[in-house]
């Protein structure tokens, strides 16, 4: 009876987060993927966290030195601080690659494979074309269309010379 009363509380979201936290011993462990993460993106130049999360002893010392005047830092130290903060520079993250060749090649391969399938289909699966596709029939059909003067301005009949009885050059 009491257990079912608790379930109705869960359905109504009547158990507060603090109660849930206390049930877990006051320490809420977030999964790694739920925490702010580092990204190398052109359109997000300042990521939420630094690239290196756990600094070594020398890196910690360097971070202390960073709190003083920056002109005292050497070039290598500045680069080291940059590498702590960022994984790849803009030039590195934007570098081109040869991936497009793989993509185009694979696409052409599969198009070719499809072409083979279509050839086999035409040869072994499809029946014959209708008789209206025979050369004689198409000739009779075209003659009738010219007699009807189909599309005499821009289309079929405009390409036929009615005086010389032949196609216009």
């Amino acid at each position, binding site marked *: 009876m009491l257990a079912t009363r608790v379930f109705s509380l869960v359905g109504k979201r009547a158990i507060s987060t603090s109660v849930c936290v206390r049930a877990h011993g006051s320490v809420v462990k977030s999964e790694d993927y739920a925490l702010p993460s580092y990204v190398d993106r052109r359109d997000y130049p300042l990521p939420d966290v630094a690239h290196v999360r756990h600094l070594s002893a020398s890196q910690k010392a360097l971070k202390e030195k960073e709190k003083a005047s920056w002109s005292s830092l050497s*070039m290598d130290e500045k680069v080291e601080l940059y590498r702590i903060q960022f994984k790849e520079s803009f030039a590195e993250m934007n570098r081109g690659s040869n991936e497009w060749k793989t993509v185009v090649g694979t696409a052409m391969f599969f198009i070719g494979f499809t072409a083979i399938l279509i050839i086999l289909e035409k040869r072994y699966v499809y029946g014959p074309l209708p008789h209206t596709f025979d050369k004689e029939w198409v000739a009779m059909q075209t003659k009738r269309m010219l*007699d*009807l003067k189909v599309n005499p*301005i*821009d289309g079929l009949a*405009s390409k036929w010379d*009615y005086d010389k009885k032949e196609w216009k050059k």
Partner: protein
Amino acid sequence: MASKVLPKPQMHGLLAKHLRFHMIGAFMVSLGVIALYKFAVAEPRKKAYTDLYRNYDLMKDLEEMRKAGIFQSIK
């Protein structure tokens, strides 16, 4: 790598520059397309129509069609 000094990149006005370039470009391309369409499609079509209808005789046309035997109602 550290010895060569790179020129300072443009820091401000990037959107304005992008917008100006692309506005002018889009305008020019549109005008080009319009001109191309007018002179490659519209004018020839108008000419074809005027050429046909300048000396068009409907009765003669229908007479030719009748002789060709396409009408079902008159032979």
